[in-house]
């Protein structure tokens, strides 16, 4: 039996698109407001903004609604939109010490300058699925609404708590850290313009990880630390922060630096124990991670992979894996394209196999005849 290729058409594609749109817009449930997504699904909004490389909570919530909760599809929508926007200006470099923390923990040290600030976290919470009746939950929400106002009004933390000194500053004072700070100021690599390929500057690696798929990055981290890479090392986190950072640009008329908005970021410094034969075993080194929004899992993986990559120094395929395989759009795009028609390529494969079969049959006939 021969292989007969099917043929789709523009009308069928339009009908499929209409089906998606109609099913999304027409339903018996209430209209899903953007505010609800922003407020109730904040971590998803943050994750989508981070993987899209675009800080715009309202648009991210629109994308999540349009994609029906498919984070990768929402990232695709935002990236596509972002690509149509003109670049208006370049931001000024921002000192992360200008950030105002909402949460700051230092797992490596109990008594740190500026104190531990747990903020909003479920790190210490037993996971129970709440099956409270809706009416009861709403009642509880009303009670908590008043209590929350009191908390906000009473809270006026001192400056050292809002912008606390870092553990690595303390370690530097103790001469416990390798100093890899650069004195020059190279232009950062722009991954939105040029795909980063190894060997790449650290800025390319950091931006790629910052925009990477969270799951892919965690997978790389786990593989690197416990998996077949066999790269067992001591992992201690120096800083884990959730903070707001000012975004500054130079005013086109006055030339002054002005703050145009604030973004929230997760920031992590990972302290690495050095034990290699060619390393300074009397000191530590530091890996750095920073990404949009509240996404500590990603920032922690990033910080650990940053220092792992530095220590690896191109001996394994770690850098290549991070640069080439962790982008959500790259990997999902390649995967999903498999669903598009491959009629010609597959027909060609069948014909090749039939040709081989025919050739072998001819050879067998010749052999039998001889």
């Amino acid at each position, binding site marked *: 039996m021969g292989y007969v290729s099917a043929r789709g058409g523009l009308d069928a594609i339009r009908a499929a698109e209409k089906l998606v749109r109609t099913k999304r817009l027409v339903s018996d449930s209430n209209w899903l407001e953007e505010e609800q997504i922003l407020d109730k699904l904040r971590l998803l909004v943050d994750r989508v903004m981070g993987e899209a490389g675009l800080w715009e909570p309202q648009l991210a919530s629109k994308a999540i609604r349009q994609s029906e909760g498919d984070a990768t599809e929402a990232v695709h929508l935002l990236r596509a939109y972002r690509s149509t926007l003109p*670049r208006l200006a370049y931001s000024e470099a921002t000192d992360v010490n200008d950030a105002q923390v909402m949460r700051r923990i230092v797992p490596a040290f109990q008594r740190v300058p500026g104190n531990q600030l747990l903020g909003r976290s479920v790190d210490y919470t037993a996971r129970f699925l709440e099956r409270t009746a809706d009416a009861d939950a709403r009642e509880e929400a009303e009670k908590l609404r008043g209590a929350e106002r009191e908390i906000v009004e009473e809270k006026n933390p001192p400056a050292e708590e809002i912008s606390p000194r870092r553990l690595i500053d303390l370690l530097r004072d103790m001469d416990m850290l390798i100093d890899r700070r650069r004195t020059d100021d190279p232009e950062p690599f722009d991954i939105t313009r040029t795909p980063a390929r190894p060997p790449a500057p650290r800025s390319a690696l950091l931006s790629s990880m910052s925009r990477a798929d969270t799951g892919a990055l965690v997978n790389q981290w786990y593989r690197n630390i416990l998996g077949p890479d066999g790269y067992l090392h001591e992992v201690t986190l120096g800083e884990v922060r959730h903070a707001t950072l000012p975004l500054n640009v130079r005013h086109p008329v006055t030339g002054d630096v002005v703050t145009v908005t604030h973004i929230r970021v997760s920031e992590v410094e990972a302290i690495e124990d050095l034990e290699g034969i060619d390393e300074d075993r009397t000191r530590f080194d530091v890996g750095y991670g920073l990404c949009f929004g509240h996404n500590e899992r990603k920032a922690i993986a990033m910080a650990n992979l940053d220092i792992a990559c530095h220590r690896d120094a191109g001996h394994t395929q770690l850098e290549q894996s991070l640069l080439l395989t962790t982008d959500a759009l790259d990997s999902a795009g390649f995967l999903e394209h498999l669903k598009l028609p491959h009629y010609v390529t597959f027909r060609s494969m069948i014909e090749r196999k039939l040709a081989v079969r025919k050739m072998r049959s001819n050879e067998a006939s010749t052999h039998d005849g001889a």
Partner: protein
Amino acid sequence: MRLTTLTSKESTLVFRALLTAFAFPGRVSQLPRELVARMPALCLPMLALTDIETTMCAPDQPELQAEIATITGARTVASREAQFVMHDAMPTDETTLNLHRGTTYQPELGCRLVLAWTVTTVPASPDSTQLRLSGPGVVSGTTLTVNSASAAFLAARSVANSRPPMGIDCWLVSATGEVIGLPRTTQIEAMDFAGSVPGKN
């Protein structure tokens, strides 16, 4: 009529119209009418697509060129170096052949050319040439009727696009905001009055 900065929404609408024009070469698309009422339609692609990282040139309209550069931050350079070139009249063969065509490895650097155009539905006559379009996205039977100056430009365009993937991409924009896309992949052949391409049946 002064040009103004496009909002991100307006910019996206223009982008969408231009993208549709490239997706269906030869088919007339429409730039947003409210923008066309406010400023010259020819300038809309430049306002929507250029920014501080792009280069542009509008050699026969220096005032508009200066205004676009001020609004978008795009750098003005000679047309042979520009990523975006705008012409109010058909460019000469020399200009067309000197436009940047990109490289084998970076064909996307090829010039985007925005040309003023009068969309006509007048059938072919001795003063005009009817052209048949073919290539990816072209709806079968799509034709274009052009005058002799345009025909000369299209001939030069064919030469500029003769070494794929390098080449130039064009948008033909009317004063009322109708836009026709001619990406580099679109092939154009002259037809005789009977409507067939000479030498083909």
